[in-house]
């Protein structure tokens, strides 16, 4: 599996560290306990297109949002996680 980093170009999967699902939106600190349980523990876990946080640990060290197919391992899109954080701010 190779991941095209938006800053460094296409690199081997070994340069990256995966954190996990980037699909759920983090609830506000005052949100109910139930919505935190859903965010922390429950997963859609799709067999197909899945958004994930990856860190380019041995490269530019940027956090990325990788859209990937979990059945074929095809990488469909990679965007900086910063873009999403800025859009939410």
């Amino acid at each position, binding site marked *: *599996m190779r991941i095209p980093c938006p800053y460094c170009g296409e690199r*081997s*999967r*070994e340069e990256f560290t*995966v954190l*996990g*699902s980037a699909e759920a939106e983090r609830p506000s600190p005052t949100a109910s*306990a*139930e919505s935190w*349980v*859903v965010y*922390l*523990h*429950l*997963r*859609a*876990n*799709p*067999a197909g297109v*899945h958004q*994930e946080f990856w860190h380019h640990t041995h490269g530019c060290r940027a956090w990325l949002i990788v859209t*990937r197919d*979990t*059945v*074929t*391992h095809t990488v469909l899109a990679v965007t900086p996680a910063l873009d999403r954080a800025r859009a939410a701010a």
Partner: protein
Amino acid sequence: MRYSAITLLRNAFSGNRLWTPAWRDPEPKPGYDTVIIGGGGHGLATAYYLAAEHGVSNVAVLEKGLIGSGNVGRNTTIIRSNYLLPANTHFYEHSLKLWEGLERELNYNAMVSQRGVLNLFHSDAQRDAYARRGNAMLLAGVDAELLDAEAVRAMVPGLVIDDARFPVRGGLLQRRGGTVRHDAVAWGYARAADGRGVDILQNTEVVGMRIERGRVVGVETTRGFIAARRVGIAVAGHSSQVAAMAGLRLPIESHVLQAFVSEAVKPVLDTVVTFGAGHFYISQSDKGGLVFGGDIDGYNSYAQRGSLAVVKDVMESAVALFPRFSRLRYLRQWGGIMDMSMDGSPIIDRTPIEGLYINCGWCYGGFKATPASGWCFAHTIATGAPHPLNAPFRLDRFASGAVIDEKGAGAQANLH
């Protein structure tokens, strides 16, 4: 047909023409009392114990492919009960006891081999942690021995003890642990369940769940609708997909775990050894091949194949422990899909839907649990309430906070 030395001899002298199929291939009935989704080790064991322990034999096991073609045929065959947390210790010890009597009970040779499981430690801190685990096991009535480096040297020839990047300081040994011929577990349970009237329906994939007024009434399959009063899900690897048919979202991610087999050699390793300075475990099959594995790849996957980064990591661990194995060629490598739960422990419980039960979240430790998992799941389905052994493995423990996190890694599925 009951297997014995006499049936073996009779067939040996008659060209093996007298064997009968080990289980029937029946047509689905319109309905059953209980339907188990998933013809793997856990599903078949559940069906067997429903019939054998609870007298529920109007049961069908639905398998989308062939039985034993999933994770029960894709693991590294290790059995053990060397856990620290009480819920796990008692549950896995029950499993090990069932393994010890399994072949007699099923009248099937599953090649249960109690050759010992040795967990190596490489530092003082790790020795303390393993001593604590061993003591917890002893308190629960499980066998455990703490070995020093000399005892390990005497027990496992070829292991690098001193001249290593991570010198071996000793190991925690469970002599009753060992290996089992994995396919035979599926076949043995299938044959024994079939003998008690359970219908094993292969090539029957569940595509939908019929729920009326909060109660399950049956399943839609590729061979039509099958009515059922109770439905049990035992499809680790694809639990999220099947649970979604009932509108449930699980605390599970699917990940790929690889396993490896080397070319066959003469006996070199007569126990199961695990590496304490990495994640690696190895044993030798009766056929002579070394069977070994390591970590999951770390990213969500349903592909049943892994990446070279983990292959390299596993090989490095193998050679770090046993330099002599560097000259072996590895024959086969494959991947299996694991239900990684959010605390590293399984779920055997009821669901919010009446009549629907779930057995999932085995991470990469499901094989050794097969008998106890089936035994507890059968109890839960037959009586409508969990047995004390599986009562801690609740579906709602993530909301209540009563998680069973053996590794202490938190709600991070790929770290367990």
